[in-house]
């Protein structure tokens, strides 16, 4: 990733719970549970089955992430393909990086991109799933707008309207629990780019949510 001045420190500013298994005290004994991801990948040089440790650490998170984005039809394939690609490329893994999550999510992101039509359809369906709700008073709906499910159509539509790159950044942050620096490494972009994309995506989503509330007020007038 020659284009990216790579930060060497794996900060976990957000204290994201998922993947924190990989965080180890420096110098700790490299027992099976204590090893960094890099150590696991190195161990797989000798014993390829060691790679399953990575699966056990991250498959659940990757599966949930892929499932949220693509739904049941493709989530498992994305996970399977991500690990198959990672395994094939394991010797190219930069072993100075203890945490393999950006690497794995980077592969997964490209796999997810192959199914962009499914994502499109999923977001449309998600937006519509609100259609069947019983009619509520406008006041209820406006009050409820603070809750996530009430804003679902606007949220889904806003996600759908993001550029693919912006959507990746936003969802890796919100659903993948990755920090901005991890996202930058995941996508092979500069940290500053990740920051500006996240900022832009958040602003667009915020605007869409705001506009939705306004539309509704005006429609009910």
């Amino acid at each position, binding site marked *: 990733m020659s284009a990216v001045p790579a930060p060497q420190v794996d900060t976990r500013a957000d204290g994201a719970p998922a993947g924190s298994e990989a965080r180890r005290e420096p110098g700790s004994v490299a027992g099976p549970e204590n090893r960094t991801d890099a150590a696991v990948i190195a161990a797989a040089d000798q014993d390829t089955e060691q790679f399953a440790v990575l699966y056990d650490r991250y498959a659940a998170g990757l599966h949930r992430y892929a499932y949220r984005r693509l739904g049941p039809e493709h989530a498992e394939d994305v996970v399977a393909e991500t690990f198959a690609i990672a395994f094939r490329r394991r010797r190219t893994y930069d072993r100075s990086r203890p945490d393999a999550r950006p690497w794995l999510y980077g592969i997964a992101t*490209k796999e997810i991109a192959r199914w962009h039509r499914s994502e499109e359809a999923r977001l449309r369906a998600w937006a519509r799933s609100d259609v069947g709700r019983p009619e509520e008073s406008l006041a209820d709906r406006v009050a409820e707008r603070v809750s996530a*499910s009430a804003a679902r159509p606007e949220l889904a539509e806003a996600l759908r309207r993001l550029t693919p790159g912006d959507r990746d950044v936003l969802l890796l942050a919100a659903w993948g629990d990755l920090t901005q620096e991890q996202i930058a490494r995941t996508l092979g972009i500069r940290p500053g780019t990740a920051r500006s994309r996240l900022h832009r995506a958040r602003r667009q989503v915020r605007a869409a949510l705001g506009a939705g509330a306004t539309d509704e007020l005006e429609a009910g007038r």
Partner: protein
Amino acid sequence: MTDEMTMLRDAGTELDPPGEAPAALRERVVAGFVPDGGAAGAPGAASRAAVGDVIRMRRPVGRRLALVGGVAASLAAALVIAPSLGLGGSGEGEEPGLPISAAAAAVLQEAAAVEAEREPWAPRPDQFVYRKVVETLDVTAEPLEAGHVESWVSVDGRHTGLSKGWTLPDEDPVSSPLEPCAEGTEEWCVNVPAIPADIPTDGDPDVMLRYLRDTAGPPPEDVPEPLPDSATFVRAADLLAIGSLPPQARSALFEAVALIPEVTVTGDAVDAAGRPGVAVGLTYAGGDRDELIFDRETNEFLGGRQVRSPDELADRAGWALLESGVVDKVGQKP
């Protein structure tokens, strides 16, 4: 209002799988972790491959071309959605969206004339369309991030092509085969025919305009008030992005675009390769524009861009067609 990130996280739980990833999946995946005699590639190759994959998988015009589908989806690069950052116009102090339809028609007719003078030809189904394009990936990056792609796409979509992509000039390009689409995967498969089999080649602009309207996707969603022929224009841009259409078709395409009433000269523009030109396009409410860029001197078609206003970085966005032609084999150049 709740913070949008919190809302997104909360709403995301609605999309969660009903349970953990199945055990059968683990078995299937772990079964593949067997010695293989060494993974190919030098250190760093994976990340470069990743970049290449991104370029190949990147749908030109993102969502919009995805909706248009067809040929467009197979192309490695086309119009780019420019991010909205700050206020600005098209530069050079020129007023964007200047309603000079006549000037636009003149540029397009000149371009059509250039094509009409070429020797007519028709592609064979077993040939490949070679293209070299550059597309802005991130206008906010310093230096500018651009995707360079060289590709050989099967004319009929039934032959394995090749895409080579890179983002930095000194980077080794990463090659990805473009496999023919399997039955039933045409919806999302990227290797569709490079040249639509049904594109009119009789040189009649009216026939071409009808074809564009018939095969256009839905109107663009990222502009507030699309014009009646917005999608027609985007469809034309997609077809021009192929580069190697038979000259009769390209000539008719330019003339057909000139028939779209709202098309105007939108000012000076620079394509993604830095080549200055004149932009012809549609201007929407609020100043957003879809543009095709032509060489100011020769009227040759250079590329295109989408300008989503406000956007002070417009001149960094877009895509540029550097080379194109039809060849017999993957790897050949015209």
